[in-house]
């Protein structure tokens, strides 16, 4: 029996429980980065108990202690895929990420409209396919797919076949960094395969914990292009409650109004998208 420690972030539990279901030769423990940090000494002492550590590459650099030698440490990247939610981005004010009506995910259209002084009603009118096309919202699938698959491939995990299945009935991401459990299950299966380990064939999946987080919708027009059902219902984080688009815009404006105009800046990964959206809202693109 091998003892594994899965060290990741919000995808940790789903991965660990998938590993347990998929292999009878594993005893799996999960810890997210905050659990590790809160009790670092205990984990350091126990590191030698584990026959393998499966670690999120970014998190490995955030720990305040060294991981054991490379022999039993595997790096497994997270699932990150934003093509379903191209309007969503992370934004900062005063150097800190801001949290809005559904958490970290803010609408670039709403923010651009607010910066331009548009009313909620005029902002609402911007949520249409014409604007999305000009903002480049339909352009993300191929480059993000290729980037994600290549990232996993570079870590020895082949996801091409699984990716073919993921988006067949519905969006496989709740948000750009929260996949559905079947995706994590496939990642776990392919990771085990990359180690040459046999896996069980089972249709049981662990609980889908990430649905408890915020779930921005796949806008109808974008859903049409990506072949999945869409909506304009924004699920709040930790609550099983939706905001409709009007409520979301109003709540977003309330958040933005707490900051001086121009002080909310996109995270560098979302600068290009926000700048383009702003030009579209201004009628310049």
């Amino acid at each position: 029996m091998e003892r594994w420690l899965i060290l990741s972030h919000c995808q940790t539990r789903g991965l660990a429980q998938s590993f347990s279901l998929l292999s009878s030769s594993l005893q799996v423990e999960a810890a997210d980065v905050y659990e590790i940090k809160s009790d670092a000494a205990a984990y350091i002492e126990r590191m030698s108990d584990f026959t393998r550590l499966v670690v999120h590459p970014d998190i490995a650099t955030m720990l305040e202690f060294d991981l054991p030698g490379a022999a039993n440490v595997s790096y497994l990247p997270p699932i990150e895929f934003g093509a379903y939610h191209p309007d969503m981005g992370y934004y900062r004010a005063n150097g800190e990420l801001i949290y809005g009506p559904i958490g970290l995910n803010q609408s670039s259209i709403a923010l651009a409209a607010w910066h331009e002084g548009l009313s909620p009603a005029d902002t609402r009118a911007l949520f249409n396919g014409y604007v999305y096309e000009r903002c480049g919202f339909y352009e993300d699938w191929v480059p993000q797919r290729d980037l994600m698959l290549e990232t996993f491939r570079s870590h020895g995990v082949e996801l091409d076949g699984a990716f073919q299945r993921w988006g067949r009935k519905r969006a496989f991401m709740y948000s750009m960094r929260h996949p559905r459990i079947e995706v994590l299950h496939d990642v776990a299966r392919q990771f085990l395969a990359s180690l040459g380990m046999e896996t069980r064939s089972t249709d049981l999946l662990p609980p889908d914990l990430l649905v408890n987080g915020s779930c921005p919708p796949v806008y109808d027009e974008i859903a049409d292009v990506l072949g999945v059902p869409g909506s304009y219902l924004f699920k709040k984080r930790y609550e099983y409650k939706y905001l409709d688009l009007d409520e979301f815009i109003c709540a977003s404006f309330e958040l933005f109004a707490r900051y001086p105009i121009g002080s909310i800046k996109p995270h560098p990964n979302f600068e290009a998208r926000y700048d383009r959206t702003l030009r579209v809202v201004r009628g310049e693109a």
Partner: protein
Amino acid sequence: MNNPYSGLPDYQFWRRSVAAVQTHLFDPTVNPRFRIDADAKVASAGSCFAQHISRRLRGIGFNYYVAETGEHLSPDERLHRQYGIFSARFGNVYTTAQLLQLFQEAFGEHVPAETAWQRPDGRFIDPYRQQVEPDGFDCPEAVARERARHLEAVRTMFLEADIFILTMGLTEAWRSRVDGSVFPMAPGVIGGRFDPDRYEPVNFGVEQVHGDLVRFLDRLKSVNPGIRVLLTVSPVPLLATFEDRSVLCSTTYSKAVLRVAADMITRSYDWTDYFPSFEIITGSYAGGLYYEDDYREVNRVGVAHAMRCFLSNYVAADSPKSASPAATKPAPSGIICDEEMIAALRG
């Protein structure tokens, strides 16, 4: 080792062009014969699925040509009385025989024996477009007057259109034993009275469908030399069959006949083309995802897929197909979920 398949393009191989492509990215359209300019007058006719096409064409700003607009009516009244659903108010045209008959009547080459049927409520309907006037007509003369106006619009449509999109629906029809006229629905369903001495069921074969198409296209080209025709086959299964067999088997027969006839036409007429909406919706690659729960109606996602392929291949510009390497990155490295969030997601 060289073989006849060496060097063929990817779209000729299942593994490369179907199995390896995400469902929504699949596009079986190959080498479209023409592009539709933004200002081209696009007319359409056909079965239920054709309504999706006409609606979407209007929705995306196409110059969808409506020769019978009902301008004198309010928008609600127009909708209620089926103005603008197709390029003229002919309702669903299910069979190629019905289409040929409509053309011939519009150009004075066919005068049907029957002109009006009475409904159980006493009102009258046009036997060749039975549902376009939900409130019915007062009398047979009113039906005839309105039909004369309608045929004038149909004639204008065939004369003026630059592109005609025909969605072929099925091969079964009810036919008059008196003059051979075909009806979109059986007598007695909405109006009229079923009389086996006057009406007969017919299930057209390839030769008949092909023959009707040839006669229609030859005549259409003779009155409108610049016309180009795009053929499609409706992916919507038959609602019912009069054949003594499963409706699914009759559906397969109908669609096969129509698909073969379309292929025969496009091999003979270089100003026609076939758009594979049938394949996009029904293909095994889609796994039935593009149907509603009744396995018959095409859902929004399926219609969107078909129209996306249509726009990508038949419209010169403004297609959403292009992919840009400048697309946003998915998520920022170095940012993880906040502690509060992760705690809430630990389960």
